[in-house]
Structure formats: C-alpha cells, structure tokens
C-alpha cells in the first residue's frame, strides 16, 4: 500500500515584523520597518498511509498547525514538497479539495445567523453531494453526534460544544478521504470530548479515511492514534508508536491532591515523588500501573479533601523528548 500523504523536507518561514516597545519604538518601526524571517517548520518529512490515524503532538508554536495548513493547501511551502492523494495541495484543485477536510477549532464555516441545516445544504451543493448520499451521511452524523435538537436552531444560539459538533458534521458531509483535525476538542467538556473521539474513530473504521489530528489533550491522542508524530521547534523529533512514546517518556501519571490540612512534603514523598507543592495543593508522580494503589494508600493515610489523576501535560512529555530539563528533576535539584 502506498502512502496517501507524503511530506518531503518541508520548510515554511513566516515574515514577522519586529516591533519595539513605546511610542518612539512605534515611530521607528513606522519609518523603517524591520522584518524577520521566522522558520515555523524546518525540514519535516513523513508519510501517512490510508486508514491511519496519526496524532500530531507538540507544544504551542511548534509547527503543527502550519504543517496541517500546508497539507490542506492553505499555505505555500517555502521549500520542500507535499503530495496528498497524488495532488500538490497548494494548487487547490477541486478534486483534491473534495477529498479532504480540515477542521480548525471554531473557524466558522457555519453561517452565524442561520441554522446548521442551511449551511449543510450549501455544503451539499458546493461539494456536489448527491441527495441520497447527503441524506445518508447527515443521518449518520446526526445520530452519532446527537445533532437532532440543534439542527434547526440559529448557529448563534448554540453552545460552544454544539457548534463544534456541527462544524465537524459540516466538514464531513462530503465524505472526505483525509481528515485534518486541528484541536477538534478544544473548549469542549469531557463528555463532548469523548463523543467527538468516538465519532472520529468510528468514521475511520467505517470509511478507511486517514486522520491527522493535533491536540492539547493527551487523552485525545491516546484514544485515537497508534502512531504519533512529535514536532518541536519546527522539527520532527519523534515518529512512531504511541505506547512506546508514553512508556519511554511519560511513565508517570500526575496525582493532584487538595489537602485538608497542611502536610509536609516529606510525608507525601513516602508514597511517590513530589512534583509540586504549594500550600494545600500537591502533585505527585505515580507510575502508570500503580496509580490506583498509591491513591488509595494516600486516601487512607493523609487528610485529603480532593484527589484527581491526570496525564502528564503534553508539553512535558515533549520536553523530555527534546532533552529539556523536565520539571521533576528541577524539583529534585532544588530540594537538594
């Protein structure tokens, strides 16, 4: 099977104008404006095959979104080549655009003052979707995303989550073969996040579409992607299996404690290494396999008001990849 997305030594620079602070600074930059080329993506190559779900991770400004925008044809590469389904994306051929979709946060493709149904009908016509296909897909999407109650309300009256679900439905009505999802769950509550995840996974299974998604939430990536690409500072620093990445780089979960009474860090470090301690809040690092056990021991021993188990923030996982000093070591050093 051959790759449907090929990215070959992609580089993308942005032109940014330098602004100095203050009125005089504004005046100087008005007279002679300094521009700086900021590389957003530096020499990134990868291939993605049909049916794959690939998680695209990296801190803010790492170049994730830029890469997705190049692959979807919104941006011209500064150098390097992209091939998607045999097309050069930035030529934006109609047949190419009909085979992909891109969901970007709350970017509006829904008309604000009209109902989602109105916008969907327009999409149907623009993408030449036959009535039969349209009805079938809309039916499926409505059921899976539970859209029935919102389909005929003006978009401006919908909640953030409802709008996101409608954006997603609108982006999939033409049955794209490739989905570029940029932060598809941002701003959604946990239930909604799960619904979107289930939906994407199911769409992938049913249609064999390839999915590339970026997310701030580790859980999104864990639930969906077997393969992850990690990008940092514009460079690809990891391409491989997610479980390998997690086992290697984020073996711990974060136990967040809200204490009822002050407790010394020493008393907590008996259970697991203390990552952070501030007043009545503490964060401990517990190995994945032992989280539940450690948590129950803590609950028995320590006056805890509240407890939460969370993933390591992606920034930290990625930070480790890049051999930055992970916070835990910094804490240990400070403790010495």
């Amino acid at each position, binding site marked *: 099977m051959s790759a449907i997305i090929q990215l070959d030594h992609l580089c993308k620079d*942005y032109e940014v104008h330098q602004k100095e602070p203050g009125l005089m600074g504004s005046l100087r930059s008005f007279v002679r404006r300094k521009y700086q080329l900021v590389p957003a993506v530096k020499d990134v190559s990868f291939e993605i095959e049909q049916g794959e779900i690939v998680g695209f991770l990296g801190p803010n400004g790492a170049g994730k*979104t830029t890469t997705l*925008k190049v692959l*979807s*044809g*919104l*941006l*011209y590469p500064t150098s390097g080549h992209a091939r998607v389904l045999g097309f050069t994306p930035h030529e*934006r051929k*109609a*047949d190419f*655009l*009909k085979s*992909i*979709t*891109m969901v*970007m*946060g*709350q*970017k*509006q*493709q829904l*008309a604000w*003052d*009209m109902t989602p149904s*109105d*916008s969907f*009908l*327009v999409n*149907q*016509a*623009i*993408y*030449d979707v036959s009535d039969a296909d349209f009805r079938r897909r809309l039916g499926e999407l409505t059921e899976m995303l539970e859209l029935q109650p919102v389909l005929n309300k003006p978009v401006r009256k919908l909640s953030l989550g409802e709008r996101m679900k409608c954006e997603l439905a609108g982006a999939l009505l033409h049955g794209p073969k490739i989905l570029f999802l*940029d*932060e598809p769950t941002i701003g959604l509550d946990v239930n909604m996040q799960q619904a979107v995840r289930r939906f994407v996974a199911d769409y992938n299974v049913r249609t064999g579409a390839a999915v590339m998604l970026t997310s701030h939430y580790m859980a999104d990536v864990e639930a969906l992607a077997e393969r992850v690409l990690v990008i940092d500072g514009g460079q690809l620093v990891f391409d491989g299996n997610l479980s390998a990445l997690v086992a290697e780089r984020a073996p711990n979960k974060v136990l967040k404690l809200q204490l009822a009474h002050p407790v010394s860090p020493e008393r907590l470090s008996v259970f697991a290494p203390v990552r952070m301690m501030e007043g009545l809040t503490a964060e401990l690092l517990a190995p994945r396999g032992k989280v539940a056990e450690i948590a129950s021991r803590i609950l028995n021993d320590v006056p805890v008001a509240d407890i939460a188990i969370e993933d390591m923030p992606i920034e930290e996982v990625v930070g480790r990849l890049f051999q930055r000093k992970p916070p835990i070591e910094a804490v240990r050093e400070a403790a010495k």
Partner: protein
Amino acid sequence: MPSLKALRAMLALHYGISLQYRAQSVLWMINGTVPLIMMLIWLQLAEDGPIGGYDATTFAQYFLFMFLARQSTPTWVIYLMDRGVKNGELSPHLLRPMHPMWHYASEHWGELMARLPIILPMVAIGIAIADAWSWSLLAHLPAFVLGLMMAWLINFAMHVTVGLIAFWSDNALGYDTVIYQLYIMLGGVVVPVELFPQTVQSILAWTPFPYVLDFPVRVMIGRIEGIDVLAGFGIQLFWIVALGAFFTWGWRKSLKRYAAAGA
C-alpha cells in the same frame, strides 16, 4: 466554478441572512441617497431652463435611475477580503472546491435580493412625484438591466483587484475609500457625466468609471441609443475581461503570501 445548484443554495442562504437584517438594510439605503439629494439640487437649478441639454424631467429620470444603479452595485468585498486575510477567515473558503469570490459574490447578490423590493418602489414613487414617467423607458429596460449586470461585474472586479492589497499590506481599507470615491464621484452620482467639461469626459472615457453607473442610466433614459449602446456593452465587456484577467493573475501571486492567520 460552482454548479448552478450550489449558486442557488448560496443565494438562498445569503438572502435568508439579509432578511434578518432587513431593518439594517433600510437604514443602509438611507446612506446611499446621494443621488436623491443631487436630484433636488439639479431640479432647482433647472428651474430657469435646461442645463447642457438636461431639463427637469431628464434630471429627475437620471438621478432616480442613478439611485437604482447605485443601490444595485455597491460592494463591501474589500472589507471582507481584509478581514479574511487578517483573521484567517479566508481559510474555510479556501478549503472549498470553489473560488472564494463566489462566496463573496453570492453574499452581495443575496443582499441585493433583499434590498431591491424596497428600492424599486422608492424609484417608482420618485418617478410619480417628479412626473417623469414616459413609455419609452419601458423599451430601454432590457438594455438597462443588462448594462447594470455588467456594471456590477466591473465594479466587483475593480474592488476585488484593489482588495488584493490586503495580502500585501496591513490595511487595505484605506484603499477601499479611494476606489469608492472614484466610483461615486466619477460615475455620475453628483454630476451627470455628460455635464462634465469635454476634456474631463474624454479622459474618463479611458477608465471603467463611467461604465459602472452613468452608462446604464443613460441607456435607460434614452440618452444613448442605437449602435452606441452596443459599443458601450462592448467596452463594458472589455473591462470585465481585462479586470478579471488582472485579478486572476494577482490572486495567484497574492495567495502565496497568505499566512492563514488565526488558528
């Protein structure tokens, strides 16, 4: 190019949006009343006899149909392009298998459909009050409508071409004012182009401006007839093709600079 079905769907959508802002577009129209104000002035001036071949009836007809032409051709596409480039609102349109201009154009057409039912009665009432009706107007109507449609295209092409500045500079809106001024002032909204001094008229003839408003209006009131009407259509067509080609070339160049700001 989108299918007819797609065009119809987009028109329906934008028509629906415009209807919700009906009250707003009524007020917006008040701001397009310059031709009516000028009509009052010229009618008063013409009380002492015709001016440059225009008598009171001609002035009334000229400015009432000028009002109609002005209300049929306005465009805010530079504003849309500026916002699209700055906030990245262009991105969703670029992802569609259709030139984004179709979306912008249908927004204008949908709004026009909501506005015309208010404008047309206003023109009719104006003609009745000014006692400016003549049956010959009816005969000129088809040519007027065709001329207006071409005029719309010229004006839109002019504006989207200027709108490309949005890709290259921080603020294209300043240039929106420039092109708007030329469209209004040189189009005949204040002074009928025929009443301009001869030298000015002959310079203007080399620009698209008289073909946006003045030409269709003069066809309607019968001040351009016969072969000259055809020649005028030919020149209109020339401007549509020339501006369209220039825009297409510029669009391709400009898109390379699109930075898809925002998300």
